[in-house]
């Protein structure tokens, strides 16, 4: 187990380096930089601008050199200063990471919490109304673009007034709230983005769960279990479900990747201050250190997600040994 963990983490290092290098290279190669807007200001002397250029190493267009200037401090946990907000990137991005994790985490719970029971029911009651309903939901979820779905949800919130039309909490009275009120207010804001982000993944896992369930239910050992006179619940949950769920656990790691990548649009539309909106704004303002730190965090989270999936699989399936 330990050797497995160490090996996997070591294997993630070249991946992290490759991804950050490519990102950095593309940022270096993109025309213009943050200082362009400052240069337009006649009150700032050219000497100071040249000083800033040297300070941020913006004077060089060599991608390897620039990467090194980013990489070496980053290795020691120093992600630099945000150009725009003039504060350490780390302070800025920490809260954003937490917000994104909150949203993806609740979407993950939503999608898996619905996908597994619905998929099992659709598989057991194949071709009945519940199965038809599930197949409708899955086609809907697979096909609806998250832009459109988010906007529909906002329209729904605006028309009914049942949910807030965006944001992470009620900014105006946030400081006056008791902890309990803060909690319910956050949950209230979380509902719609969770539904949007969760539905798309849910459709996919539900289909997978259903087909795995159908295949497992036709196995010989299920017939044996039935012949032994086991109760229906025991056959379905103990014998079929545990075997059918294995392939889905591998999907789990991908689902985190999918959610993190898909969260950008949802965050953007709902005004959710997460990594997605951060990257979007930082790209617009050419705030390179922020983009780099955000991308690093994203890839790290993906690697950890895949690792968790492997560990889960080993826990559920005793045939798998992690050595």
């Amino acid at each position, binding site marked *: 187990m330990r050797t497995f963990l160490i090996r996997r983490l070591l294997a993630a290092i070249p991946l992290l380096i490759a*991804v950050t290098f490519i*990102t950095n290279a593309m940022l270096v190669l993109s025309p213009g930089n943050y200082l362009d807007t400052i240069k337009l200001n006649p009150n700032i002397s050219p000497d100071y601008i040249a000083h800033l250029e040297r300070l941020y190493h913006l004077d060089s267009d060599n991608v390897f050199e620039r990467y090194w200037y980013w990489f070496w401090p980053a290795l020691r946990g120093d992600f630099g200063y945000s150009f725009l907000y003039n504060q350490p990137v780390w302070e800025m991005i920490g809260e954003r990471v937490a917000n994104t994790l909150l949203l993806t985490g609740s979407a993950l719970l939503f999608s898996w919490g619905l996908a597994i029971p619905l998929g099992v029911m659709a598989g057991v009651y194949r071709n009945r109304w519940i199965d038809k309903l599930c*197949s409708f939901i899955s086609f809907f979820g697979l*096909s609806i673009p*998250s832009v459109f779905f988010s906007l529909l949800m906002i*329209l729904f919130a605006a028309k009914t007034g049942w949910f807030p039309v965006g944001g992470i909490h009620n900014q105006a009275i946030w400081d006056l709230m008791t902890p309990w009120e803060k909690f319910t207010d956050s949950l209230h804001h979380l509902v719609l983005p969770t539904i949007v982000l969760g539905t798309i993944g849910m459709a996919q896992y539900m289909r997978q769960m259903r087909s795995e369930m159908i295949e497992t239910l036709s196995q010989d050992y299920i017939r044996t279990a039935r012949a032994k006179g086991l*109760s229906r619940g025991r056959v379905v949950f103990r014998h079929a479900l545990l075997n059918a769920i294995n392939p889905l656990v591998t999907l789990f790691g991908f689902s985190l990747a999918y959610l993190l990548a898909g969260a*950008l*649009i949802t965050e953007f539309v709902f005004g959710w201050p997460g990594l997605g909106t951060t990257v979007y704004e930082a790209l617009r303002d050419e705030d390179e250190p922020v983009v780099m730190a955000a991308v690093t965090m994203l890839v790290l989270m993906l690697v950890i997600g895949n690792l968790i999936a492997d560990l889960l699989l080993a826990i559920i399936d005793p045939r798998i040994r992690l050595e």
Partner: protein
Amino acid sequence: MTERLTRDKETNAPDAIGRAAGEERNLDERNLSVAPDLPAVTGDEGAAAGPQNRGRSPSRIIWLKLRRNRTAMFGLYTLIVLYGAAILAGFLSPYSYSTLTTDAPFHPPMLTTLRLFDEQGRLSRPFVYGITAEDVQLKTYSEDLTRKYPIKFFVRGDEYHILWLIRSDIHLFGVDRPGRIFLFGSDLQGRDIFSRVLYGAQVSLSIGIIGIIISTVIGMLVGGAAGYFGGAIDFLLMRSVEVLLALPSLYFILIMRQMFGQGLSSTQVYLIIVIVLAFIGWATQARVIRGMVLSIKEHEYVIAAHALGYTSFRIIVRHVLPNTLSFVIVTATLSVPFYILGEVALSFLGAGIQEPEASWGNMLIAANTSRYLSDFPWVLTPGFFIFIAVMAWNFLGDGLRDAADPRTLG
């Protein structure tokens, strides 16, 4: 009493489940091609695998099976209609995508106010009333009952091109000026959303096709080379595929788009979007094709081709890759939505097709202002079309996957 009840339950329950599972098995034996997750398939597929298929080409068998799949055919017909409408956008739309009506911003859809009966209640040719702005601030309108504009067919209007070849100014329908017809309403500048949806389809739908062709070609060549040569080439190519697959795609697309800078013409932006999306998209295909090539290259005919002294390129392209074709077509069909949604996302975030050009993505930008969205919900119309297009591609792709299942090729 309770004991008896539970016993009853226990004896009955396995029976019920037994029947259910038994049905599954029968179904699966008789009906191998029906993927378990597509209940809508009907008809006896087993027959397609039978002896009468001898002498039929695999693609013909696939087509025959596809034709029996109602959802897949529904998807196919929908796509034909959508793509046909996109090609004929200029002719079908009453206005050009950039025709402004400054005095009618956010006019509600007229689809519901089309009149078939005149004041006396007699059936007449469809007509609309003139528009009077009631409140310029709130953008409320009323119908001017004194002005009637019958809908005319094959009227002259804005000039347009069809496929860069045919130039014309004849539109399928329209009303005489100063009357206006906004079937799906109008946007902030008073442009006709119906016309813009049709023009936007040209961009949004064609990016799907072009993107998938480029990334499939790259994916086949890279996957073929990696699988065929093995060794260092395989290692190198597959590691880069893994890096691409590890990237959070939409973020990466945005960063890559940044590299090309701002202030480009719409044709350039279109090309950039295709390149960026294809750059991300080929990785999945390359990985699976590599796996198929690994097993195909062991076949005798590949060794024979090698013995004949053919070049590696020729063997890969002419002998190995054609065997992956049915798989490639299925994955390609299922990945078209990625490109359509990619363009929509990019344009929606302001990094794609720019105004006044229309795309389904940039038309939705108006809906991101919550006041516009709640007061003028018809700005969401393009989203509905994205949904339909993506669903149609999914239907078709699912049907193709079931039809191309090699277990039933006979």
